[in-house]
């Protein structure tokens, strides 16, 4: 590894002992010897297996649920439905006052996506739980479903989630998150060229090698230990406390060892129901997603659509940018209202543009609820922005890297969110990239710096 110390020499401390030094990972010895304890490596005598009966429909009313045959199946200890869950309707971001509560732990009267949890079966063996789950009878009345975000926003579209009442998340700013800076229409009027393009992406599954799950053991004093691979330990503890209507002091969470997460294990899905099952049966319970559940049921990265309209001058300056972003939350909020909001913050890009208009919508559809994944709300936007930047450069016949230098934000520039830029290093990164990739740019671009203009 090479440290290029010529950059920011006056703002950087060089007396560092750790940066730049290889250090062994503390967890590696456990990994290579097979001794690292993942949640599923905990095994308790008498442990029950939880299997979920899931909705085969994208959108349906539940007329009735008959669990009588499943309850009689050999090896079955308990069957749970919505009425067993103390606080069945929840939303994870309620912890930071982002409501309304809009998701059921177990479906109550309605299912809103294919794969939604309806009935939990607890049995002595995995096989018995699977067999009994197949005997649960749910009578559905199939409802019209909507899978496309723009269709969902049209008047007359089927309402996906009644807790919202409309197919978008209602922010305090209205139907979308908004950024308004300068006068975008005046910017377009002034521009030599205007380019409007739309970009869209499909959901992406994290596919961790270890599937989502937890093992819960009653401690015998009405306290429960939950071994989990959540990436969001205290989020999970607090949400479990709300769902179970149990003080957090009754819940002991053990985790931190995650067999691959990538953002896919930040939802609160398996723990509350497994703790409830352990409480109601007095037995240890394990609830582990099958590979198929991990791929089909766990939250993916949201599908997104991004429409970018840019006004650009012949000399390379972007003078106006209008972006409309759509984030497909699927049937429930989970982390998507936050993801869409991040998009609003991100779409100006690391560029100084005097006139910016951004609207981002968090849209509900009858697809699998989406949630966090590495840079959610940002990653797809970056793809769109950077393809757009190259297209703009091509439109005015300019080298794409030089085009980036012209528009790159620098310290002191006012960002669209009215936050002055500080600590920018984009110019320097591009200078280094220009050398490393052997993609030369005009000498004047190699001479500039992130420290203010005209230096």
């Amino acid at each position, binding site marked *: 590894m090479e440290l290029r110390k010529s950059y920011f020499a006056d703002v950087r401390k060089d007396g560092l002992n750790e940066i730049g030094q290889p250090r062994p990972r503390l967890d590696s010895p456990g*990994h290579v010897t097979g001794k690292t304890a993942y949640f599923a490596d905990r095994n308790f005598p008498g442990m029950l297996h939880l299997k979920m009966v899931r909705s085969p429909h994208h959108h349906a009313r539940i007329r009735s649920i008959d669990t009588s045959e499943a309850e009689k199946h050999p090896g079955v200890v308990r069957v749970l439905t919505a009425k067993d869950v103390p606080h069945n309707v929840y939303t994870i971001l309620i912890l930071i006052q982002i409501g309304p509560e809009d998701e059921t732990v177990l479906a109550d009267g309605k299912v809103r996506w294919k794969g939604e949890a309806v009935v939990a079966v607890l049995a002595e063996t995995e096989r018995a739980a699977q067999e009994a789950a197949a005997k649960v009878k749910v009578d559905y009345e199939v409802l019209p479903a909507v899978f496309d975000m723009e269709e969902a926003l049209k008047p007359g579209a089927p309402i996906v989630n009644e807790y919202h009442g409309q197919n978008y998340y209602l922010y305090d700013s209205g139907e979308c998150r908004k950024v308004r800076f300068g006068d975008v229409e005046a910017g377009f009027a002034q521009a030599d060229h205007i380019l409007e393009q739309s970009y869209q992406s499909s959901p992406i599954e994290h596919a961790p090698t270890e599937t989502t799950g937890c093992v819960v053991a009653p401690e015998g004093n009405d306290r429960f230990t939950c071994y989990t691979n959540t990436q969001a330990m205290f989020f999970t503890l607090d949400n479990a406390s709300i769902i179970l209507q149990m003080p957090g002091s009754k819940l002991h969470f053990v985790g931190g060892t995650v*067999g691959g997460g990538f953002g896919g294990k930040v939802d609160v899905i398996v723990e509350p129901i497994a703790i409830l099952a352990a409480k109601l049966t007095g037995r240890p319970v394990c609830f582990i997603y099958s590979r198929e559940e991990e791929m089909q049921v766990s939250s993916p990265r949201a599908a997104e659509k991004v429409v970018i309209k840019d006004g650009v001058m012949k000399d390379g300056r972007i003078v106006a940018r209008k972006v409309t972003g759509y984030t497909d939350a699927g049937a429930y909020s989970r982390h998507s209202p936050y993801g869409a909001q991040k998009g609003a913050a991100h779409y100006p890009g690391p560029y100084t543009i005097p006139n910016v208009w951004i609207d981002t919508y968090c849209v509900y559809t009858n697809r699998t609820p989406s949630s966090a994944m590495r840079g959610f709300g940002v990653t797809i936007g970056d793809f769109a922005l950077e393809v757009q930047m190259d297209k703009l450069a091509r439109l005015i016949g300019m080298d794409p890297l030089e085009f980036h230098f012209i528009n790159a934000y620098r310290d002191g520039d006012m960002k669209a969110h009215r936050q002055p830029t500080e600590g920018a290093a984009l110019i320097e990164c591009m200078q280094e990239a220009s050398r490393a990739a052997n993609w030369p740019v005009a000498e004047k671009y190699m001479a500039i710096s992130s420290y203010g203009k005209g230096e």
Partner: protein
Amino acid sequence: MAKVPVQFTLNGSEKAEFVESGTTLLHALRDKIGDTSPKGGCHQGTCGACSVIIDGELRLSCLTLAETCNGADIKTTAGLAEGGMLHPLQRAFLDAFATQCGFCTPGMIMAAKVLLDRMPNPSREDVVEALSGNVCRCTGYEPIIQAVLTAARANSQNAA
């Protein structure tokens, strides 16, 4: 539920258990015998996290029924370190940052071990082929490939 006896050698020591007929070797090792080094990642034969060595051959313990292993010689990553000394592959995985979340690591090491046992000086292509049934979602594979090549070099230097 019908219980059947299973008896095999695990990492050099004799094991005997009763399991329900139809129990996979993965469950028998993890839940009955207590060797949790093989991991259940997919239970479909796709991820390789449950890889073990049976009579010198790499097998997937999630698709192998325990009762078909009577009399077999089974090796897992938990038995690789001898006398507290890491096996060269374990050392190389450690040094090369070939582990991140660590969930695929025991299976990867098993796949690498059967390769090096058979082919002490493998090419990069040989290593890629040998690891091709093992999924890693963290590293991008390159550090793992380098670790196996490094372990092979360490072995051949020790032999020389």
